């Protein structure tokens, strides 16, 4: 560790909790007030004396050969310390989350609009930006490969990566694929068993995580030749694993500390500026800070995979599903990122939470010259849910059935098997969630007598005083996996230490968990309080001095790292009680730590923890592994692939100005089973946030890409919901414990993002009578003016 001062870390250093709230309580987040008051130090606030500013030259072309790069003029700019290209990368030239197919800096060709080609470090950000403009690149511009048809016909349109460069099972611009067949599959005989068949083609646009804190961090070269990086990320250890080979350093010389994260949603699972800042720091021997500008941020992280999906469902006359036939094509863009996992989710969850005796599925991710796509909240499951839930509504209509009843009739429940063959061995209250969401009271009808334009579509834009407004209601339910799947052991590590500080027992929890806003730091303190009977808990800054905590994604952190904290705290408790038994000869087997004391149910208070500890500290480190899973069979998709399932049901009520095609979501209700709400307030916050992000995908959020070029890399034109777009979101929480999970809990963050979008689209369909096969729904779709 460097001994020089690092500013901007203050909020991460010490988070003392003096509350009695253990699990099940709702203590407030330690970072909440700071964030609301604008005092929280984000990674973009990091500062170091003598630091330089790094920035990148990015490609204006989605596909081009680089004929030459001339950095001489840039190097000559006063204040510039280094200009680097791929030739300056000391180690491995390629990295990647799952497949190392992405060059740290472009080598001879660029594959997407915004790909980094060269780096500059200068003593002022403006100097760095000016120098970047002086780098001369000669391009041979090529026609980008951007559509499904072009990608799948490489002989005509070319390859994004030459086949001999493939580092995985890729073939012909297909980065990854997964097939699945269950029951009899889908054959003519199976089709004949259905009385009613509905089919549809659906499209999902490219959503962005749109976190507000841009990619940023500070790399500090160390005396041992290594580097210390302070960065906003989702998974410190996997960053390091990808960085070290490129920097040509052993793992232990690449040390990461989490800096203040301004949102993530999957967009920080891949590397952005990490390698670049370290390359510049190691080259110049000076600390280097990189902060992306907003447009660079849109180019600098992966997005949600756009999807084209074809679904066919057959059912009997009384509504029982007979078969489902699905093809899901995901555009992975230039580099693999998380595409294989996204395909795995789409294939294994793409039929929804329904019992379907016969299934055929084919999911693929393409390589293209569009922006790279990877992790985003609910990945793979979000796209598919729009397909299968649209189909459920279509089927209900074809059958003349109530759409909720149709869903309930086919809903999975505990003991059923997924099309992967995996038995659902925990509560799966899908029908109940639907019933509850349906039974919640509806909002009052629009009151035309006492109009408040803010409540109408268009709001203060003053487009309607009641004209053209039609109300619609829609329902949906969704399924998501929790944790990493398909045989991945994404374990978490926690170190818990108990000692006396200032006359009080204080627990310190040290993990490498990235707090990205999910509230993990709050929950860790709650767990320590409950397990150790103390009030004061300090959360150590997250860094690579402790073992991996896995990623803050896949709804997994409370389950996995929370579980590790529980194990480590239990081990500390065990050691402490053993010490007492040894020292004082306690024979009771009903000992517990409560209220700062060792207590026995039969013998009462035995001793204050402070006295038992004395000068000593008790420290334990534990790894938490979830139960093992296996990869899905490549051809049949069969296998015990997922750790846990999670479900959410929604009802959306919308008002649509059918003449202008403007939408106001009036209310978005959610009912979710969370197993156990460790912090009910946080759980509600996660569900409301997830619903809001789903609303964005339903009606506004899309990165517009034309011929491989991003057209709206700014918050001027990439629209996310404002408070006037965000309706009241009543939430009901069910707590049916999962016997396999710590405290019986279920991952919470993603399920509502999966399920809420289709309910909104269903409501708009009901109001307008339009088919709406594409999201986000635009005013043009509703007014036939596309």
């Amino acid at each position: 560790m460097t001994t020089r001062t690092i500013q901007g870390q203050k909020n991460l250093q010490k988070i003392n909790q003096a509350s009695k709230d253990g699990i099940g309580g709702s203590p407030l987040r330690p970072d909440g007030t700071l964030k609301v008051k604008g005092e929280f130090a984000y990674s973009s606030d990091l500062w170091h004396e003598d630091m330089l500013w790094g920035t990148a030259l990015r490609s204006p072309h989605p596909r081009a050969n680089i004929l030459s790069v001339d950095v001489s003029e840039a190097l000559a700019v006063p204040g510039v310390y280094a200009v680097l290209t791929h030739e300056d990368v000391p180690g491995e030239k390629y990295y990647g989350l799952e497949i190392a197919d992405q060059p740290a800096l472009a080598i001879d060709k660029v594959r997407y609009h915004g790909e980094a080609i060269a780096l500059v470090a200068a003593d002022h950000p403006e100097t760095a930006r000016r120098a970047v403009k002086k780098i001369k690149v000669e391009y041979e511009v090529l026609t980008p490969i951007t559509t499904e048809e072009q990608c799948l016909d490489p002989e005509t349109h070319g390859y994004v990566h030459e086949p001999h460069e493939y580092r995985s099972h890729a073939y012909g611009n297909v980065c990854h694929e997964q097939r699945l067949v269950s029951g009899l599959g889908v054959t003519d005989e199976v089709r004949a068993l259905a009385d009613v068949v509905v089919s549809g083609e659906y499209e999902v646009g490219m959503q962005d995580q749109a976190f507000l804190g841009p990619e940023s961090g500070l790399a500090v070269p160390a005396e041992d030749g290594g580097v210390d990086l302070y960065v906003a990320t989702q998974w410190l250890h996997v960053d390091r694993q990808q960085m070290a080979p490129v920097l040509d350093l052993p793992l232990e010389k690449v040390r990461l500390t989490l800096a203040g994260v301004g949102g993530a949603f999957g967009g920080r699972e891949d590397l952005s500026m990490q390698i670049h800042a370290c390359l510049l720091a190691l080259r110049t021997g000076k600390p280097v800070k990189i902060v992306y500008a907003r447009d660079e941020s849109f180019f600098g992280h992966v997005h949600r995979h756009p999807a084209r999906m074809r679904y066919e469902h057959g059912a009997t006359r009384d509504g029982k599903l007979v078969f489902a036939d699905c093809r899901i094509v995901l555009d992975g863009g230039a580099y693999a990122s998380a595409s294989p996992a996204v395909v795995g989710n789409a294939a294994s969850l793409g039929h929804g939470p329904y019992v379907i005796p016969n299934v055929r599925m084919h999911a693929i991710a393409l390589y293209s010259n569009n922006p790279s796509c990877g992790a985003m909240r609910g990945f793979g499951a979000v796209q598919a849910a729009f397909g299968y839930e649209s189909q459920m509504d279509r089927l209900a209509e074809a059958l003349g059935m109530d759409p909720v009843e149709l869903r309930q009739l086919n809903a999975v429940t505990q003991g059923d098997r997924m099309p992967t063959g995996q038995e659902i061995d925990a509560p799966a209250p899908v029908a109940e969630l639907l019933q509850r969401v349906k039974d919640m009271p509806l909002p009052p009808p629009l009151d035309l007598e006492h109009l408040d334009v803010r409540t109408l579509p268009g709001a203060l834009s003053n487009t309607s005083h009641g004209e053209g407004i039609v109300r619609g209601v829609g329902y949906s339910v969704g399924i998501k996996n929790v944790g990493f799947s398909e045989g991945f052991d994404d374990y978490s590590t926690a170190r818990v230490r108990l000692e006396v500080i200032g006359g009080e027992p204080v627990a310190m929890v040290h993990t490498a968990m990235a707090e990205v806003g999910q509230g993990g730091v709050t929950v860790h303190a709650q767990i320590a309080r409950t397990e150790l009977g103390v009030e004061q808990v300090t959360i150590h800054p997250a860094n690579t001095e402790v073992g991996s905590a896995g990623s803050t994604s896949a709804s997994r952190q409370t389950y996995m790292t929370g579980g590790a904290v529980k194990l480590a705290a239990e081990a500390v408790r065990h050691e402490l009680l053993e010490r007492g038994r040894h020292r004082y000869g306690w024979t009771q087997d009903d000992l517990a730590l409560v209220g700062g004391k060792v207590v026995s149910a039969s013998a009462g208070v035995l001793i204050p923890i402070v006295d038992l500890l004395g000068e000593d500290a008790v420290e334990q480190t534990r790894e938490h592994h979830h139960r093992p899973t296996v990869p899905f069979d490549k051809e049949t998709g069969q296998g015990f692939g997922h750790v846990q399932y999670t479900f959410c049901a929604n009802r959306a009520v919308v008002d649509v100005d059918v003449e202008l095609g403007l939408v106001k979501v009036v209310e978005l209700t959610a009912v979710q089973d969370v197993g156990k709400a460790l912090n009910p307030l946080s759980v509600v916050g996660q569900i409301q946030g997830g619903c809001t992000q789903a609303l964005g995908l339903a009606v506004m959020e899309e990165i517009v890409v034309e011929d491989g070029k991003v057209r709206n890399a700014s918050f001027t034109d990439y629209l996310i919901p404002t408070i006037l777009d965000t309706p009241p979101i009543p939430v009901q929480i069910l707590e049916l414990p999962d016997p396999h999970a710590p405290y019986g809990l279920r991952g919470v963050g993603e399920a509502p993002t999966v399920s809420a979008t289709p309910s909104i689209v269903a409501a708009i369909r009901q109001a307008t009578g339009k088919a709406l096969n594409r999201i986000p729904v635009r005013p043009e779709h509703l007014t036939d003016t596309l």
Partner: protein
Amino acid sequence: MEFLRPATWDEALAAKAEHPTALPISGGTDVMVEMNFDVHRPSAILDLNRITELTEWSSDGDVVRLGAAVPYARIIEELSGPLPGLALAAHTVGSPQIRNRGSVGGNLGAASPAGDSHPALLAAGRGVSVEAHSVRGVRLVPIDEFYVGVKRNSLEPDELIGAVRIPVADGPQQFSKIGTRNAMVIAVCAFGFALHPKDGTVGTGIGSAAPTPRRAVEAEEYLRGVLAERGLWESGELLGPEVVQRFGELVKAAASPIDDVRGTADYRRHALAVMARRTLTWCWNDYRKQIRSAA
């Protein structure tokens, strides 16, 4: 980059004469965004924030003289009576933060076809004019002549906007704007409408549907004719669906929109017709109420 901070209006005009390429900054809600995006790298910035008279307005009962830097928030609060169309437009601008800083002077300086003041100013009557000040004196530019191209206005390099003169409303005015979300959105298209019973005219303004903000001249003429010929100003009778429909069609025909990331040309035309019909109907209903209660 030079940073000029004149304390008085005369100093500002002198500075602008001396540094004609200096970029004025008022609320900064356009300037700072463009600098951030690297659109501008001005040699000098001319900060107008010390000049208090730019944040003042006055009225003689017929015309409001609106200082260039009066923020939208104050227009909403203080001028909804005399300038109802502009106040409605101000309400649709950005967020509370932007409305606290942004100004009509800045909107005119930027001259974006998507600026929300413009349709309201165009509709507010022929008398609307921009005071272009320089060391050479004051030039009154009629609003129709102010917008000359995409993000271009008719200011000379040594001129600054001192104020805008806007006739006090003599009839109902409305403003509608389309955005793909319900707040904080740049107009996909917008429409301003005003009835001017005193001289028997009507005003229109189209935003975001042509290279510059523009009036729907034929629509205005058509409606003026109908109102006069049928004696509707006096009778306050209903206009009838054909008139409303025809007016909408003429507004639509006056636009020449493009397809872009914010919306298609077809949608813009369609939405303009709808907004034209609705705003006309609202204004006419209000006018009818007024003359009935006066009767």
